[in-house]
């Protein structure tokens, strides 16, 4: 209905308001104002049907959209007008689509809903929270999708980290062999590798947080411009940072442990020479 009004808004030229009546005021979407080059104080003609008779109104306010995720993908323009004006314009009579009721407390909300649904003729009352749950289903789906993508990313990161740790440890096998031949215990070597892995993981994740924060700024800047909304599309919160660093640390320690175990289990001389001793060859040699 509103869309039809707005469609008419762009093409309407026939004014049905008598000249003696002062035009009523309307508030229009800031996006509509920008696209149609309308400013506060302008007079416009609104109609419920394209090309049909309409009313002259005066734009007295521009309304910026709220940061409401459910409105992000909605591209249509909106106009806020006096209720009686809209009822008259669209021939709706003394009717409304819904009432918003403010209650004093949660318990009074429950009582009000019960009474309205039991006693009021032709009404159905809903708690705003329940409506919000229904309208946010889309975002629950997006959240689930992001979570699934996140899990895949974590698996890829874990493999990557393990691979890097393995390579780093392999590169230092001669140093480790020397340490072991000097009598340094396997436990000490494992701990040192794990500390190194933890440092790599923490430094990497801190760099990642920095990159993520910058990316988040870019994402918000881009999508706010695309959807013309003040909504924050990406947020970096302390809990997200803590989760990322902790996860990275755990993965790093696990990768370090796995890589170090390979190192301490191999004979020290084999590590030093860089050659794998083939047991069968040894048996045959004997």
């Amino acid at each position, binding site marked *: *209905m*509103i*869309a*039809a009004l*707005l*469609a*008419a808004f*762009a*093409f309407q030229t026939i004014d049905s308001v008598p000249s003696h009546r002062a035009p009523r005021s309307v508030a229009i979407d800031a996006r509509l104002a920008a696209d149609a080059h309308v400013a506060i104080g302008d007079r416009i003609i609104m109609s419920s049907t*394209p*090309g049909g008779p309409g009313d002259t109104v005066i734009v007295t306010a521009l309304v910026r959209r709220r940061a409401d995720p459910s409105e992000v*993908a909605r*591209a*249509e323009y909106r106009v806020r007008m006096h209720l009686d004006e809209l009822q008259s314009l669209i021939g709706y009579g003394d009717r409304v689509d819904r009432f918003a009721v403010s209650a004093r407390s949660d318990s009074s909300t429950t009582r009000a809903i019960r009474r309205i649904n039991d006693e009021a*003729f*032709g*009404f*159905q009352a809903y708690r705003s929270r329940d409506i919000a749950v229904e309208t946010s*289903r*889309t975002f629950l*789906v997006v959240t*689930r*999708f992001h979570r*699934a*993508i996140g899990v*895949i*990313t974590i*698996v*890829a990161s874990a*493999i*990557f980290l*393990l*691979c*890097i740790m*393995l*390579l780093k440890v*392999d*590169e230092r096998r001669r140093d480790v062999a020397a340490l072991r031949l000097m009598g340094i215990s396997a436990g000490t070597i494992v701990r040192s590798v794990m500390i190194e892995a933890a440092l790599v993981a923490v430094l990497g994740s801190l760099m990642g947080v920095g990159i993520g924060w910058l990316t988040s700024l870019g994402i918000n800047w881009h*999508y706010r411009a*695309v959807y013309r909304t003040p909504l924050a599309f990406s947020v970096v919160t302390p809990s997200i940072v803590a989760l990322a660093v902790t996860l990275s640390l755990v993965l790093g320690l696990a990768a370090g442990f796995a890589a170090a175990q*390979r190192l301490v289990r191999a004979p020290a001389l084999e590590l030093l020479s860089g050659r794998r001793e083939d047991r069968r060859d040894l048996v045959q040699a004997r």
Partner: protein
Amino acid sequence: MLLRLAWAALTRHRSRTLLAVLGVAVSAAMLLDMVMLSSGMRASFRNMLLAKGFQLRLAPKGTLPFDTDATIPDATNVIRTLHAIPGVQTVSPVLGGQLHVSLGSRTVTATAIGIDPAVQGDYDITAGRAPASPDEFVANDTFIRDARVSLGDTVAAAAGYDPQLRAFAGRRTLRLVGRAHFLYMAGDQRAAAVPIATLQAMQGERARDRASLFMIRAATGANVDTVLASVERALPNVSAVSTETAMRQVDERLSYFRQLALILGAVSLAVGFLLVTTLVSVSVNERLGEIVVMRAIGVARGRVVAQIVLEGVGIMIVGAVVGLALGLVTARYLNSILASFPGLPAAIDFFLFEPHDAWSALGMLVVAGILAGIYPSWRGASLPIATTLRDEAIG
């Protein structure tokens, strides 16, 4: 020979190679998923729009089909006008609404469309037949299941509910004659189709000779853009949307997913590239002595480079093949998540597999594998032979 040497180098550190292949496989899976995501939505949306061959849709001026409750008046004249336009072959009017079916103490509400059964492009009959008289209708599986009705059953239906009077409006007795698959409805949405005249009559004065949408099929050989321009000239109070325009609007609304696909796809490729570069670099560093010996005995630099590049490509190809299989499984899972978007037509797939997607992903990975191997191998093969041999000998 080259292949044997590359194989020997890769199998020398099996666990390392296995991990690299696994890493590339996960990256390849993600890459394939993102390639599928970036093209799948468009392809499946296009397939859905063109499923019945209607290339144009007319909606009330300034709106998209079924985006609002607005309707187009004087539907009979609109149809007549459209048929007079050269190149218009079929015009299918559609009116949207609701159908409340009383079943004793309970009511089942469905999305209803009023159609002309002879030219409709909204559903495929899967059992029974299309409505042949004004009091017949077809419904989808969800409606039939929820209403617990069977083909041939008669139901008391209404087109509206008056909350002031707490009574149904526009009552009719309708007979279910067919089970249908609705092309544009969500999977869990109850849907029914009745002849358009029936729904107009049930909705009363406000729907008299009105339609929410007209679908137009252009004649074979007719230029759709020309037909579109003629329609807009003949009917200034409607918005004509071609398949291309609809695609652009969908692109605009779902740009988020395409951009996400682009970013994640690029990250996946970069991760795979980094992994193989690291592995090949370390492998080259470990085998400097071996490489310079090969150079010393006369093996050409290009051949050494080719062998090392082959190692990177080998990891990429094996990882990609495993990853493509893994990608199909994860795509199915991710698609099932996104398919639960409220109101999304069941025909839309976000992750639609097309063979060229797999080839694109494989091609990108092979190129990344080649690039990953070129620098470390060239560096290794370009080292001064004598100095490197002495350094390696001294250790």
